[in-house]
């Protein structure tokens, strides 16, 4: 069994093991073991990648190819480059942290963890797929469990939120399907067989008209899950209703599929289409950036604030991708990573705070720094990371994005870039607003005086997420080198 397939197999084994568990204790233990193994394998994969990359210059490493549906030339074909490796590590970390955070899930624990693990399996699958069909299958596997996760274990208007989220994402993936079919049936433009293999199609010059026609489908199909501006409304409601671990996983990992897919599929396979449409989508994306930030100012529910800030941050990812140069792309990937860790941390903290104060309304809280020093301090740090404080991952990512954006001298791109940069100010506003309201100031409510202290598993989850944030922020070079080295094929095809 090769190193990549294991990434999908281990979750499946975990699920099987979970089926035999009796109660919360056993199931969470099993899941924890599974996720730790997963994390170990991810890190091992990282080092293996460096070793392999040293001797092997091909685009994808550890490739494996099994014929699946022969007549349609559908393969189970996998492989990773620097980008996917980075995102795989993100996933494994967030999943493990999520397990820690949902240590005390009371209702149907077994089912909860099963669904969670299935979701993670889907995500891993997407990141290792080289075949469009496989990718699409895994993508849907990753999306659909959200319905149950939010619907069963959620809070507030969970049924509405779950249904909305599922329908919007599945509707998007339906569009995506058309895009994929369009790509598939044009993949023999240079003669040769029809194929779903991304690398194969990457060599083909699909007719311009077809590219122009199918790029929007593919782009939107993926971008919706990346909270792309007009189609982002599933995310605030979804996050607000989802249980903590699910919000973490969803905002931290699942939403990254959007940027990843846009880059790996839409832009890489349809370069001409991308060029033709880039300005249009660039405008929408930058609207998302500014709009999300401004909308976040007005929110009072912590999860809503975070959801909108996600809209803004992931809008930056799309902007960067559409900026069409190496620096910006590097920034986009870094931003995906850093936002993943950061927002996961945020949701984890929100969950902890909610679990203690039983409210998520920032206006109702105050002076938590006094009663929950550790959690509040981490919250401040997370906030600073999210507003791009140097030394945190967010800064590195945003700076790459901005530097890339500024490589376009023309006025249109200048304006877009400056608007994007302006988001850092607004971000500061809404982050500090919350910090000031909720953590600082006098204690508003007498029963905030004595809140339960942070427990070991909470701290474990927090540290797990803090380490990469600070690590990337302090020493970005190795990571950005790893990503940059994987960007060459994209550069050859798109620039």
């Amino acid at each position: 069994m090769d190193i990549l397939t294991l990434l999908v197999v281990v979750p499946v084994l975990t699920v099987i093991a979970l089926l035999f568990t009796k109660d919360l204790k056993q199931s969470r233990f099993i899941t924890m073991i599974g996720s730790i193994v997963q994390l170990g394998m991810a890190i091992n994969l990282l080092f293996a990648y460096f070793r392999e990359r040293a001797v092997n210059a091909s685009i994808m490493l550890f490739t494996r190819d099994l014929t699946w549906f022969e007549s349609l030339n559908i393969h189970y074909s996998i492989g990773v480059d620097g980008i996917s490796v980075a995102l795989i590590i993100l996933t494994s970390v967030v999943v493990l942290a999520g397990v820690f955070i949902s240590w005390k899930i009371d209702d149907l624990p077994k089912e909860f963890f099963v669904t969670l693990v299935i979701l993670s399996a889907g995500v891993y699958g997407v990141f290792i797929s080289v075949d469009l069909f496989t990718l699409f299958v895994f993508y849907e596997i990753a999306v659909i469990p959200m319905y149950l996760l939010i619907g069963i274990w959620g809070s507030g208007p969970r049924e509405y939120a779950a249904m909305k989220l599922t329908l919007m994402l599945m509707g998007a993936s339906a569009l995506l399907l058309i895009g994929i079919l369009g790509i598939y049936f044009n993949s023999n433009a240079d003669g040769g067989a029809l194929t779903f293999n991304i690398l194969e199609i990457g060599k083909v010059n699909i007719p311009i008209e077809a590219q122009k026609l199918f790029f929007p489908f593919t782009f939107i199909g993926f971008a919706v899950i990346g909270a792309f501006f007009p189609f982002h409304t599933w995310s605030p409601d979804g996050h607000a209703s989802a249980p903590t671990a699910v919000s973490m996983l969803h905002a931290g990992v699942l939403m990254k599929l959007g940027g990843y897919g846009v880059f790996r599929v839409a832009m890489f396979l349809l370069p001409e289409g991308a060029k033709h449409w880039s300005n249009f989508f660039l405008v929408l994306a930058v609207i998302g950036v500014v709009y999300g930030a401004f909308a976040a100012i007005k929110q009072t529910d912590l999860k809503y604030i975070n959801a909108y800030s996600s809209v803004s941050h992931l809008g930056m990812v799309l902007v960067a991708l559409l900026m069409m140069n190496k620096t910006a792309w590097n920034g986009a990937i870094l931003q995906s990573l850093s936002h993943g860790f950061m927002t996961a941390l945020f949701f984890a903290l929100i969950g902890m705070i909610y679990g203690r104060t039983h409210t998520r309304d920032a206006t109702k809280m105050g002076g938590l720094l006094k009663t929950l020093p550790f959690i509040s301090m981490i919250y401040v740090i997370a906030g600073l990371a999210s507003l791009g404080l140097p030394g945190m991952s967010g800064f590195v990512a945003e700076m790459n994005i901005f530097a890339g954006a500024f490589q376009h001298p023309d006025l249109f791109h200048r304006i877009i870039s400056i608007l994007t940069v302006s988001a850092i100010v607004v971000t500061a506003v809404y982050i500090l607003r919350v910090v000031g309201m909720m953590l600082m100031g006098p204690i508003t409510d007498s029963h905030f005086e004595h809140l339960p202290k942070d427990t070991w598993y909470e701290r474990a989850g927090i540290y797990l997420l803090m380490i990469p944030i600070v690590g990337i922020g302090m020493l970005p070079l190795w990571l950005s080198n790893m990503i940059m080295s994987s960007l060459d094929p994209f550069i050859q095809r798109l620039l």
Partner: protein
Amino acid sequence: MNFSYTFLVPLIPFAVFIFLGFFYNRIKENISGWIGVAGLTSVAVLSYYTAIQYFYHTPKLDGKFQTFVYSVNWMNFTDTLKVDMGVLIDPISVMMLVVVSTISLMVHIYSMGYMHGDRGFTKFYAFLSLFTFSMMGLVLATNLFQIYIFWELVGVSSFLLIGYYYEKPSAVAAAKKAFIVTRFADFGFLVGILLVGYYLGSFDFQYLNGPEGIAAAQKFGSIFMGFSVIGLALVLMFMGGAGKSAMFPLHIWLPDAMEGPTPVSALIHAATMVVAGVYLVARMFPMFNFVDHGSALHIVAWVGAISTLIAAIIALTQFDIKRVLAFSTMSQIGYMMLALGVSGYDGHEGVGYMASMWHLFTHAMFKGLLFLGAGSVIHAVHSNLMQDMGGLHKYMKITSITFLIAALSIAGFPGFSGFFSKDEILIATFHHNRPIFYITLFVAGLTAFYMFRLYFSIFWNKKTHYHHTPHESPLTMTIPLVFLAIMSIVPGYFPFTEWVTPDKVGFHGHIDPMMASIATTVGVLGIGLAYFFYFKPTDYPAKISAAFGTFYVWTKNKFYIDELYLFVTRNIIFKYISGSFAWFDKKVVDGTMNLIGNSTVVGSEAIKGVQSGKVQDYAFAFVGGVIILVIVVIYML
């Protein structure tokens, strides 16, 4: 000569920060205090050693001070555009090393007394170390991007320290204000940096300020009001500087920042961080000077002049002693700015630059002293307001005397350090820009007046009786006062003209007797007036203020600039912009999505009647379908 050990200068405080940060709830207070002081002492020693080595024992390269750069690659934007982390040793950075380490050390010692018994003591020292680390990194930065990085870090540490008393809403508000205003300024700064990075392809000071960098920068044609792209970029950078240095109109955060503990005000908001803007302009001075024939410098000069004037005027009317000091800081920084603004590059032309740096040095010392003194006073009487003070001289001699020394120094009384630096500034302005010269002179008088208004009404004036008699502060607080008192005299006799000049060559400075006499008379005038008004309780102040009427009211309310900002943010940005965005999101965007969803449901309700349950309707539909299909297929195709 090898200065690579200066890496330690930022790293030691960082180590201290990490240590204290991790064990903040496990260490006893005086332990952490001593750790901080020890760390800072070593830093100070290193800095002094570096300064002596650099200025005395380093051979000059064809008459110029050499520049030493030690750096490691930190991040690459492109294959050419790299970001390094490192240390750059040249006259101004060495000078700043001395300033920062001195003040920081003093504040560390002072705080052991001042913050004694505070429950966040360790946290306080952790933040102080964090700040020192960031400031040192800023000072030693080898490139624009490193400066920006530490620029942000000092901003954050200042946020943390202003909001140190986080249970006081006013403190929280002040912290937020400080951070957001500077953040807004940094937005300009960042854009400027990115523009420079894109057009000149490097962030590195050595390249940018070197001949080929200048040459590259001068190639760009004017695109906007006589500014080239680079010129605009410089202006934007100056915007960042203005934000940090509380220049008009971005100064509003500084007075509120006084909500922080007094040592913090002394360290950050008087001596070090607020002069970062000046330092930035000085750092990029060749660029500022040569690009677009220094058009950017004019802006610098005028912004400085306006700020110094406004600040001085406002300072006249404030009663909170820390606010008075804050405005005086703003006004003094305005001095430095305008001095830079009027400066030229080589030889004696660079006197403005030299003066500005010199004033930065001296000002750091005496303003630090003033704040620490004020702190000591507040410590004694537990109030910030002049009205609650008076006659303190007989209770706290040391504080009083040191305070007097500082006041004389800032008033430019001959013999004190402030006199020399201010004198140079006057010379510079006199030679290059008359209007500004007059402003400067006027402000010199105002400074002397409000300073002694402050001094007299704290230490002399009426005999307030205190319900518990104030007493002199403990040794940990007085020692720094004394040391700084010395430091606010001695630097006047440093050969700054030899050391710190734009072209690094150095010239022989001399006191211009005419200028000196003018300045002195103005200063003495101010002092005398203040003595006349405030040495004993009189009703002149009331009369004067009454005479000025509305102007006085406006001044007292800082010309309502805060209110203006508040109106813009609260009522325009928050209420209308973001409010409408939120509404739009809920109603329009989300509404559309829901509409699509509901429309299907409604549609299914609407057509349910078709399934009527009547066999014959079904049959009719059947036959109709057949016939329609036939017609369509045969005739329409």
